[in-house]
């Protein structure tokens, strides 16, 4: 149920305050140490951030998409890695369960996901299956006698895998193509499941990705999410939502960078005046602001459409394309406006520049978003 305006405003205000007072001062440290302090994660749990999108009856606060976007934008104002610590729990790591789970499965897992007691990951990508996610090779073979599926294969670049207690895994139960894929809830402690060391990444230090390997992992039949062959469809619906959420984060990050740019340009003096008085600097601020507002409007509109139950595959792809490319340009301009300081780590701008680069790659690359937009547009005739 949508919140009344006062409650919603207070919720966003609280998240913004937490971001300003607790998270922003830690950005440099998290960037250097590649780790978010546990006490901050615990505070996020207490605040209820891990349960934003989990229905109230399962211990979350069941925000609508439009409300969730408000939180995503507010969280975007700090290093994206901070959001990532609960990002899988409220997004790709839980939404398959929310959308396709049985009541029993939800009862079993969701309350602990909402509280943050369990960390979740979403395991779709594989060494040989990235953009072409329908071609996953991880196999799930039914052993009816034992009442289990036996999983074999490996997953790649899985966010939060090193901390995850529960994986949503897409694996092949049938023939080739997307229709042969099913999805499974796989607890980390099952024998045969192993997680690799976390990768060294370009940005978003503090959020980790690892390989996840399955070697004859026996997953109980009741852990299958939805019917056999529905896994890919579920994954795509999860990603529609995820793309929208990420777009909100992009908008928040752009807003933060614009604030930083304006602050720096107003203080920094060259040729006897603040550089903000030069039209070429103003143009960069103006373009950033206008593009960011446009992206925000699109994110908010798409979120409302989703809440109204409309089909949003095209909208989500367009929103993610626009928002992620926008924040890339804004971050590039921020480096430029800062001049030499934009390239020096102490100012944090180069870190943001590296951090936001990911948004054009995961949850579907920009090329894949364009393919979806083109496919859907050609289908409907324009």
């Amino acid at each position, binding site marked *: 149920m949508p919140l009344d305006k006062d409650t919603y405003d207070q*919720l966003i205000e609280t998240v913004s305050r937490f971001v300003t007072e607790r998270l922003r001062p830690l950005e440099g440290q998290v960037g250097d140490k590649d780790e978010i302090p546990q006490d901050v994660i615990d505070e996020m749990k*207490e605040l209820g951030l891990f349960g934003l999108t989990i229905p109230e009856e399962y211990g979350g*606060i069941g925000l609508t998409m439009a409300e969730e976007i408000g939180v995503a934008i507010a969280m975007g104002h700090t290093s994206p890695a901070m959001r990532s610590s609960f990002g899988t729990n409220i997004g790709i790591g839980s939404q398959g369960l929310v959308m396709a789970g049985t009541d029993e499965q939800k009862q079993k897992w969701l309350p602990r996901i909402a509280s943050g007691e369990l960390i979740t990951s979403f395991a779709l990508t594989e060494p040989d299956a990235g953009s072409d996610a329908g071609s996953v090779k991880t196999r799930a073979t039914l052993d009816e006698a034992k009442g289990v599926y036996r999983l074999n294969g490996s997953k790649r670049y899985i966010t939060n895998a090193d901390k995850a207690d529960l994986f949503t895994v897409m694996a092949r139960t049938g023939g080739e193509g997307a229709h042969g894929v099913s999805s499974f809830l796989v607890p980390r402690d099952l024998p045969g499941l192993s997680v690799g060391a976390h990768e060294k990444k370009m940005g978003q230090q503090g959020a980790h990705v690892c390989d996840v390997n399955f070697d004859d992992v026996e997953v109980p039949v009741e852990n299958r999410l939805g019917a056999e062959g529905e896994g890919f469809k579920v994954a795509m619906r999860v990603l529609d939502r995820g793309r929208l959420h990420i777009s909100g984060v992009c908008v928040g990050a752009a807003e933060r960078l614009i604030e930083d740019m304006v602050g720096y340009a107003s203080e920094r003096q060259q040729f006897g005046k603040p550089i903000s008085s030069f039209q070429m600097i103003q143009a960069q601020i103006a373009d950033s602001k206008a593009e960011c507002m446009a992206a925000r409007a699109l994110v908010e509109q798409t979120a409302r459409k989703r809440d109204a139950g409309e089909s949003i595959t095209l909208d989500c792809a367009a929103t993610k394309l626009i928002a992620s490319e926008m924040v890339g340009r804004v971050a590039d301009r921020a480096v430029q406006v800062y001049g030499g300081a934009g390239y020096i780590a102490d100012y944090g701008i180069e870190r943001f520049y590296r951090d936001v680069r990911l948004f054009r790659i995961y949850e579907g690359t920009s090329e894949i978003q364009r393919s979806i937009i083109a496919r859907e547009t050609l289908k409907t005739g324009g």
Partner: protein
Amino acid sequence: MKALVPVKRVIDYNVKPRVKSDGSGVDLANVKMSMNPFDEISVEEAIRLKEAGKIEEIIAVSVGPAKAQETLRTALAMGADRAILIETDETVEPLAVAKLLQKVAEEEQPGLIILGKQAIDDDANQTGQMLAALMDRPQGTFANTVELDSDSVTVKREIDGGLETVKLQLPAIITTDLRLNEPRYASLPNIMKAKKKPLDTKTPADYGVNIAPRLTTTNVSEPPVRQAGEKVEDVDALVTKLKALGIA
């Protein structure tokens, strides 16, 4: 035991206040407002006492415009049990607030009234003291530590040069200082639940209190812009300079 916690809606501490061009006051149009930070400390202290089982009910009260409801909702979301808004759009001076609080206290009979030592808008630092005087009850101002017993409360007070410990018979009035505690963030689920907690709306007239101001503000001005300093060669030059300025 009940605790009464007055909370004030003030300009947010992060906002740089601007004076109205006619000098009649601070411009509050479209300015972010929040709970007075010292009052957050009061709410937090009351909640901790409740969590420790020493207080049963926390009543938040605010005197101010309809929008002060938001401030009360914050107190409810943090953990207060119910709230009273005494609604008025007029400027209410500390004495009038103290008189209103006295009436609320007569109705509610709290064992403890915890106020912020001052509000960051007018910095008056008067309401708690005035309330204690009106009620003829003991006061522990600038609290650094609070220990509550069944019939008394021990307060360590921040004073120049250290801490002073006082023991007060209940009911008592406490005003909070900055180091008493670190207020919590209201959790998001509690923000949602706060809507369902009771919030009564009253007016100053309901309590028969005349809130007409006794002071007239004649002018409000920006603090003077800090002038650039001057470097001196050595201590002698410094002393000469200070003497010339009439400071030393």
